[in-house]
């Protein structure tokens, strides 16, 4: 009965999740399926942001066109990232503005694209999850989620329903972590100065778990915390919401003997 009504979601898995942390993709798929969606994953590479933000508009457009075509069949496009979802939702229409052939398609894609957690809450009407985790977590707002897509309360609302989880807000949670895509390797010293402040803010909460909705930011913050020797684990918020925290946290080796 529910099956024909199910929302058909094309999962835009993002290149970082695809390459570095597939478990986030599976957590996202699980959350979406549990919310009554069917999930499909068409062949995909990247949203094109590295080209777009480096000023290579032609390449960005080529990649965007490819994404638009690949995701045309779905009711919704959902990404476990505010940055990539923001690229599709906010910047694709900019890339094709005034182009009579592509603009309508870019607008249509933008219309149906969502960041994962806001999709679950705002579109699927999810108000609680069945997950359990004994931890004190602090949640970092990624810039794109917060300022491009207005995602702020949704993840906090769902995290509040995770059994055993306490949320400790960090100071300046709305401040950038210093990742910035290619910025972090083009201006490594500045990026380091920014993420050092962020790491200090995270540590000051006393939390043992750092959560965020963007793997890029998480890798940056987790990498800094680990380099500093801080004993704080970092995970994508989807892993916690899906109750899939059996995989080692970001940058943590698998336990000996585990598969």
């Amino acid at each position, binding site marked *: 009965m529910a099956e024909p009504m199910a929302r058909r979601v094309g999962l835009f*898995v993002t*290149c970082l999740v*695809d*390459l*570095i942390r*597939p*478990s986030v*993709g*599976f957590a996202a*798929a*699980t959350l979406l*399926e549990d919310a009554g969606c069917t999930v499909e*994953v068409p062949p*995909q*590479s990247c949203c094109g942001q*590295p*080209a777009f*933000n*480096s*000023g*290579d508009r032609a390449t960005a457009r*080529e*990649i965007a066109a*490819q994404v638009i075509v690949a995701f045309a069949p779905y009711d919704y496009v959902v990404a476990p990232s505010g940055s990539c979802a923001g690229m599709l939702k906010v910047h694709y229409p900019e890339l094709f503005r005034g182009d009579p052939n592509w603009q309508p398609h870019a607008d249509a894609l933008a219309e149906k694209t969502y960041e994962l957690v806001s999709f679950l809450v705002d579109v699927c009407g999810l108000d609680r999850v069945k997950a359990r985790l004994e931890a004190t977590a602090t949640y970092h707002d990624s*810039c*794109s989620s917060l*300022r*491009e897509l207005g995602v702020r309360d949704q993840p906090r609302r769902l995290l509040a329903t995770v059994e055993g989880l306490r949320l400790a807000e960090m100071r300046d949670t*709305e*401040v*950038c972590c*210093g990742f*910035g*895509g290619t*910025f*972090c*390797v*083009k*201006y*490594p*010293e*500045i*990026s*380091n*100065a*920014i*993420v050092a402040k962020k790491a200090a803010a995270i540590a000051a909460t006393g939390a043992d778990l750092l959560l965020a909705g963007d793997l890029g930011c998480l*890798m940056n913050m*987790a*990498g800094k915390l*680990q380099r500093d020797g801080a004993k704080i684990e970092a995970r994508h918020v989807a892993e916690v919401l*899906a109750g899939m925290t*059996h*995989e080692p946290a970001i*940058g*943590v*080796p698998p*336990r000996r003997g*585990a*598969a």
Partner: protein
Amino acid sequence: MVDLAPHTATSPWFKDNARTALADAELQNALKFVEANFIARRREVAGQLPEFELLRDSARDIRDHTLAHLDLYLAAYEKRVVEHGGHVHYAVTGEDAQRIVLGICRKLGARTVTKGKSMVAEEIGLNDFLEAHGVIPVETDLGEYIVQLRQEMPSHIIAPAVHLTKAQIESEFRRVHTHLPRDRNLAEPTSLLAEARAVLREKFLTADVGITGANFLVAETGTSVIVTNEGNGDLTQTLPRAHIVLASIEKLVPTLEDLSQLLRVLARSATGQEMSVYTTLSTGPRRPDDPDGPAEYHVVLLDNGRSSMLGGAFRDMLRCIRCGACMNHCPIYHAVGGHAYGWVYSGPMGAVLTPSLIGIDRAGHLPNASTFCGRCEEVCPVRIPLPRMMRSWREREFEQHLSPATVRSGLAFWAFFAKRPRLYGIATAAAARLLGFVGRRWGRFAWLPLASGWTRHRDFPAPQGATFQAQWKSAERGRLARSYVSSAGGQSGKGTGGTDGRDRRAPGPPP
């Protein structure tokens, strides 16, 4: 003196500047003030005004309207200034403006000029020029006075000496004010202020010409407007024989009513004040029954590239009212301060404006040194899309082949695969397996070839193993096989291990 003319900009060496700034403990200490003070104050005062967001819309619209009709408003403004007995001079370039100002000083036989804070004067390197021609400029804004003593440029458009600690200012005063007793107490900020006041009071009285900038020029009345917190601007423009207003052409607003709207967002965005302490409107020279005021009133209107911005991609930048909110909220500015940007304008507004004024070939780093976090646009009182315009600069750079060769070739290599999802899948699957295998033991890398920019400061996580897409595909195959087997009434197939199957929830904690 530091020569501030564009050719001396150190913007091409932004990276070196930034490195120096990051290693400067005193600077880092001083910069904490920006984060700790401006942001919270703005948030508080903006929150107290329910219509603040609407005022921002209105401010944007007023600026857009003015820019769309700038020719008309300039003509109307000039007419009013002249009617009130003032003089209007148009300067196409910075050199023209320098010459005009010097001409007025010479005509009056001026030897000392006092100056209110003016970023346009910094832009054209006016102090150096005047000094080289025998006219001594004295900055009267406390911050400007301090940076003048130190032969530096301002590091912030509204707080010129924000890069300095109190101790640095004290030692500077002791170095320069040698006529004062050595054992005087300068421990308190108020004592520093009092000392600067006493020294400057003398200059105010001896100056022949006073030069100020303008926050706004009102077309309706021919009025120039400055907002200050120290009152130095008032003394600068009323005491000497002549007052020269040096302002760029985009400072126009149509009416006094428009002015009042803009003033309501300016101080709130800048310092978190409802209004600055002084808001001073000047219209023409002293009239017969005025108690004070200058005998001559000149306005030098500087173009310096702005009219060519009017028709282009960076037009929105001309809405800027120089409040500094963008730099106050910028993580890059917080990290390196204003001097690293290498020229007069810093922070996000500088990253957009500087390439327009000194060229993208020289200022290319500035619009690149941004994470696009978007906080600047979020607080801009006239809603300038700063990140979008920084990206526009990057596009120009890319088109003109100015971006570094390593960036271009790296991008081309990545793009080759990104444009071919299936090939990309094969390449990333191989990379993920290799990195996953090598990094498995420690879970992360402390060093990676070609990624030293990352690994110098942070660890890089090892991939979990196979890519998501590869795992998903085999899980799909597993699912199809399962449904085939179960519909045939056989045993349900088993996942192939790993994160397979709907059993995707699978790999549970080890037993």
